[in-house]
């Protein structure tokens, strides 16, 4: 499943235009601790987090994360979105909580 398909099927807002919409997503990881994500996120995994500091983009870049998914419609700063586009990281946003989003994404990916 691609980032674009995942956003479509779950009704997630895409904040970074066409960035990475065609990239494959194989799994996901939910965590707000950067060191934990660095240590444990898998390959081609979307990252679900409420952290919105620009430093998370550095971690996403390091781990080649195709998309970061922000729960609960949390506000994002314009600079964050601009930087994400520059770094080729898609930013998606949903209204559900991290728990619910994780479950929904898990089900979609399991279904293939």
């Amino acid at each position, binding site marked *: 499943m691609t980032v674009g398909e995942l956003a479509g099927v779950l009704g997630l807002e895409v904040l970074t235009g066409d960035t990475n919409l065609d990239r494959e997503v194989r799994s996901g990881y939910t965590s707000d601790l*950067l060191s934990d994500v*660095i240590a444990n996120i898998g390959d081609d995994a979307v990252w679900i987090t409420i*952290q919105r*500091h620009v430093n998370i983009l550095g971690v996403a870049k390091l781990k080649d994360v195709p998309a970061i998914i922000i729960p609960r419609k949390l506000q994002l700063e314009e600079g964050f979105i601009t930087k994400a586009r520059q770094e080729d990281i898609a930013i998606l946003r949903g209204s559900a909580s991290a728990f619910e989003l994780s479950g929904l994404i898990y089900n979609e990916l399991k279904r293939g």
Partner: protein
Amino acid sequence: MSPRVIVGKAREAGLDVIAVTDHNMTENTPYVKEAGERCGLVVLAGMELQTREEIHLIAVFDDYDSAYELQLMIYDLLPAVPNDVEFWGDQVVVDTQDTIVRSEDRLLISSAQISIEDATSWIKSHGGIAIPSHIDSPTFSIISQLGFIPADIPFDALEIRNPENAGAFMPFIMRKDLPFVTFSDAHYPGDIGKRRTVLTLGAPDCGNIEDALRFMGRQAGPPS
């Protein structure tokens, strides 16, 4: 803690300047200041605020009004979750006679919905000193929460529990001219003065502290 005990311990420990930095609260400052004035101890008004990234940031001001203004802003940004006194203990304001003036009902260990950048800008634009706390702690530190310290946040210094280990953190600090300071982070009277930073000041106020820290940062460079 009792203002008289705080001031007594600080004098006993040979301190000249202290700051009261309760978590997300500053209302104890005036009473400690009053007790300090009686024995020549300078007491600065402050707060250790917790940003939305769960970073602890020390804010220190000369005057209580600015600190109180910060508290009003922070209170509006804290979730409306009541304190559980049984679990977390009291959150009280204590006067110089050790009388409880008031008890804060809102849970103060929460995070305020403000970014580390915006909180630091606010402090600096109100004449305060902004210092991230215990950067070597595995929790609630700017490095534990953000991985590294961005170069563009106008901190005055970085507080570290073990200054001898500062070298190990240099790769995670993007601005190399920030001085390291260490404070006791005293939660109990017995901890007061256990760790301290020595500065030479023309006068014990934020402007002079800011200058001394800037000078210290330029002089020291990265610790080896």
